[in-house]
């Protein structure tokens, strides 16, 4: 009897990863072409449109970069926790609560000058995100409750907090009774630096560069790597696993919350429940595709941002939103699948006889 197993490659080919992604992409595009063809949509036009409306002009490139910002920061947040083998599935809620904290700061400082206010909002956003991760972090570090469930469940709670604020405490007095909060003051908007790309693009770049250094070159990052690969070894050399688990989840939450602050000041006119719009979950995919590396997160987020921006535009060719969503998912799936296959190989082995 034979069976299939997934075994880690002993000597992965150098540069195999990008090549695998390329193969995965081509594979996905071919399957996608079949899908488009079977639903009666124009194949070449669809792909061409997708490219033109994501990377085809300065205007759309700047939109793609803006979209990449929350994706990159959410991906970074997930990858930070993953270094310790922890899964932060709650970036969505941390983004929302970070944005909520930033909006709260804007209510306090609505007469402050723009740079001061925005700085205060972004700090509040990071603290808010960390606060939203605090419960799951403590539950994990102190009594070992799985962070996967707790972080996930808090996403819905963050949404309800915004709904509550919309319905009463922060309700827009000029909103004719509709459920919306008061708009942000004008000076709370991040300015544009190039075409439609806002300052958040540069800020995100700086944050990622910092973490690329911090995770690999700092003592804290070094200890984290040890703790992530062997709890025993870490404990032996005096690293407290409890503080590391707590710290890394709070840091992950802070980065996600910061993403919420950037998204609020960069793209929104007021706090709303779609500030995160799936970025927190997409961050998990970004982190996985980037193999949990900050530099990888950057590249993947830009590609993913383009996929989202361009993927939406093909609806104008008559492609249904469902087919557009499947097409985007196929491309991600192809890339992830290829990533797995470059690190692992499928082997046919003899089934053990019991």
């Amino acid at each position: 009897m034979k069976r299939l197993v997934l075994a880690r490659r002993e000597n992965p080919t150098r540069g195999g990863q990008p090549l695998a992604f390329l193969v995965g992409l081509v594979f996905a595009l071919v399957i996608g072409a079949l899908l488009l063809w079977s639903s009666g949509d124009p194949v070449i036009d669809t792909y061409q449109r997708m490219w033109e409306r994501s990377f085809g002009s300065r205007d759309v490139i700047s939109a793609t970069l803006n979209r990449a910002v929350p994706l990159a920061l959410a991906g970074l947040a997930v990858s930070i926790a993953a270094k310790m083998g922890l899964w932060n599935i709650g970036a969505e809620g941390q983004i929302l609560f970070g944005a909520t904290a930033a909006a709260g700061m804007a209510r306090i400082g609505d007469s402050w000058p723009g740079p001061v206010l925005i700085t205060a909002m972004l700090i509040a956003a990071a603290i808010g995100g960390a606060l939203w991760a605090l419960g799951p972090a403590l539950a994990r570090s102190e009594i070992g409750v799985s962070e996967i469930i707790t972080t996930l469940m808090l996403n819905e709670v963050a949404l309800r907090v915004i709904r509550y604020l919309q319905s009463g405490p922060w309700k827009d007095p000029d909103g004719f009774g509709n459920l919306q909060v008061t708009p942000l003051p004008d000076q709370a908007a991040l300015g544009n630096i190039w075409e439609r790309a806002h300052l958040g693009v540069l800020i995100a770049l700086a944050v990622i560069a910092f973490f690329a250094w911090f995770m690999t070159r700092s003592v804290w990052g070094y200890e984290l790597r040890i703790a992530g690969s062997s709890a025993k070894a870490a404990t032996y050399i005096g690293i407290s696993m409890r503080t590391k688990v707590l710290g890394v989840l709070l840091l992950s939450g802070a980065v996600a919350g910061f993403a919420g602050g950037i998204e609020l000041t960069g793209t929104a006119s007021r706090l709303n429940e779609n500030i995160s719009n799936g970025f927190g979950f997409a961050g998990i995919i970004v982190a996985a595709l980037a193999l949990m590396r900050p530099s990888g997160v950057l590249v993947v987020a830009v590609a993913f941002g383009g996929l989202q921006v361009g993927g939406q535009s093909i609806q104008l060719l008559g492609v249904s939103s469902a087919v557009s969503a499947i097409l985007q998912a196929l491309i991600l799936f192809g890339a992830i699948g290829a990533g797995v296959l470059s690190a692992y190989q499928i082997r046919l082995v003899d089934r053990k006889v019991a």
Partner: protein
Amino acid sequence: MRRRLLLVVAAVLAFSLVATACGDDGGSTGGASDDVTAAWVYIGQPGDAGWTFAHDQGRQAAADATGATTLTVENIAEGSPEFEQAVRDFIAEGADIIFATSFGYMDDMEKLAAEFPDVVFDHATGFKSNDTNFTNYFGRVYQPRYLSGMIAGASTTTDTIGYVAAFPIPEVIRGINAFTLGAQVTNPDVTVQVNWTSTWFDPAVEGDAASALLEAGADVIAMHQDSTAAGEAAEAAGARWVSYNSDMSAFAPSAYLTSAVWDWGPYYTSVIEEVGAGTWDATPYWGGMDDGIVKLGSIASDVDAALVTQVNDVGDQMTAGTFDPFTGPINDQDGTERVAAGVSMDDGSMLGMDWFVDGVDGSAGG
């Protein structure tokens, strides 16, 4: 590539015009309307019932009537960058009119209207506008709500009607109040119990909300929701149902009583024609049954013929402008008089309505 696509679209449209021109007199008004490109941003997918379905039916009717090129995008989240991108995609494709069909698109509409002064921005359910190229549109759906309430009031034997409602905002509260006032015409003892769902479209939540109302004694369910789930719950319980947005009789045929429905076609047609002719101006629109933008849907065959006549009479009075549902005396839940006898409520008070009429069981605060 784009040119070729436009040619194909134009050819298809030309063909469909020839096909429809034989059947009815609605055909193209000729002139500039068929040069217009109109684009719709949808919050959901058209599917085969509900809010987005009704808008898409209107779009198709307008396309057939004017020959305009129409574009759509679906599933665009409110307050997300998706909306701005959708509008820019439309404008890159040559759109002359943007119809945005959900409230939360308002801030982005305002911003983009300022950036693209040559494009008409028309926003459903919103309240913002400028004097040049940005306005809003909606319909007085409380009118058919009132009529559907008359039928529901006569149908309940427990004197309890359940109302599955989305969010406590004036639009929804106005509908509940009009429905209740209508129900009281045919059943002075009726109570309308409100169950808030905090969702516009979530079949599981809406079905559960309807079931809870049915268990609490309601035998008729009304709703301000986008799915048919409340109707299916009523059908399963052997109760009756008043649907909303579009005629949903096919989804719960024995429960279905009637519905308050939208017919956006005439409005979309007139905007496209006015833009084509260069006569469009940015006046906010809030039309009623007289314009045909809102109407009572089909009425179940087992509803008493005398009642149907009574309902149609009241409907005719509303169409003629001789009767308004919010005519006093109207008291709120606390017994305070809100509208004096013989007085009709003004539009401003209706648009900000945040209180329930006497007879509603529930909190207008959510």
